[in-house]
């Protein structure tokens, strides 16, 4: 199953890259996507706890606009702090508990943290996130756990 | 329009180059080099538009890829003293 899905995704990717529809190139596209999915179909669709599913993909797409808005806010905040002559930054390191079940969820949360207001993920393990924050407000908003709740929603109920 | 953007990005890269030269730690240098790499990708895309040669985008994509792998390799070496 994962073989077929990977091959399909790869073939779509090939068409997008190539844009040529001569016989030889389409044939080599089919062959290449089969070859790639033979070599690494267990990587993209994932075994065990980095599993991508259709429902998760849709929930992830619904999460993106909120993330994008947060990124814009983050950058405006950062521009202010960078260009202010006194540089109003109060860096510190905070830790908070990791409630997520899947590796993919942790990755999404960690990269979202890195992209949003004044925070950078330093370390992720099963128990906790260690995060470097630039200001007091961003530390507070992270501890309140809104982002984690949203990512948990992407993960869904089942624990794969 | 594209020319101006390209020049501004080169100026940004020069600013970051100062950090790459000054350090003070090896991680600062790695960070600066990685950022210059990202700017190079954008610059390649812009150059492709200035000279109207869309094939430059392929090169930009490859550069983004190699830049990513190079930084990861460097970090792994710094952390474990080996690559495997």
């Amino acid at each position, binding site marked *: 199953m994962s073989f077929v899905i990977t091959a399909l995704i790869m073939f779509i990717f090939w068409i997008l890259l190539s844009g040529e529809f001569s016989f030889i*190139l389409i044939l080599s596209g089919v062959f290449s996507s089969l070859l790639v999915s033979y070599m690494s179909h267990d990587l993209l669709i994932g075994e065990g706890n980095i599993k991508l599913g259709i429902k998760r993909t849709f929930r992830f797409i619904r999460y993106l606009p909120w993330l994008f808005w947060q990124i814009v806010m983050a950058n405006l905040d950062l521009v202010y702090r960078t260009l202010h002559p006194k540089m109003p930054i109060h860096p510190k390191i905070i830790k908070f508990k990791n409630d997520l079940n899947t590796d993919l969820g942790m990755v999404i949360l960690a990269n979202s943290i890195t992209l949003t207001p004044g925070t950078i993920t330093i370390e992720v393990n099963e128990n906790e996130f260690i995060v470097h924050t630039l200001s007091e407000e961003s530390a507070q908003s992270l501890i309140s756990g809104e982002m984690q709740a949203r990512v948990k929603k992407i993960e869904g109920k089942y624990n794969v | 329009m594209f020319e101006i953007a390209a020049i501004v990005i080169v100026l940004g890269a020069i600013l970051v180059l100062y950090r790459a030269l000054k350090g003070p730690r090896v991680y600062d240098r790695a960070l600066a080099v990685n950022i210059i790499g990202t700017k190079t990708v954008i610059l390649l895309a812009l150059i492709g538009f200035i000279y109207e040669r869309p094939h430059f985008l392929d090169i930009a994509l490859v550069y983004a890829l190699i830049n990513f792998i190079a930084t990861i390799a460097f970090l792994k070496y710094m952390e474990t003293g080996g690559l495997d």
Partner: protein
Amino acid sequence: MKEHIIVRVIASILIPFIQLYALYVIAHGEIGPGGGFQGGVIFSASIILYVLAFGMEEARSRISQKMSDLLSSTGALIFAIIGLLCILAGGSYLEYDQLPLGTPKLASHLGIYGIEIGIGITVAAVLITIFFEMAGRKDD
């Protein structure tokens, strides 16, 4: 990097796309930038990323020493055979348009395509071998 969850997951998502991109570069060697050598290098970069994220043993279980040795000579063999076929068809070495494949234009098209594939396989296999040998060596 066993404990690097993020690098591991991102690498496993990106590697198939990198490999497909490498094959795309090899196949479009005639009409775009790139070709066999560049495609081979990108392909080996994907294997290097795999080693960095998952470790040497995992990578060895996917591509054994024997496999990469075999592939590096297969690529060179493809190159040589296409060249020799050109001689057999009455041209000089690598004179593709003498090949009996329809029109001379199509023949040279297919000939170059075959050569690019051969070069790509060899370059990828040799670079993978070099990386494995160098990364496996410990500092004395």
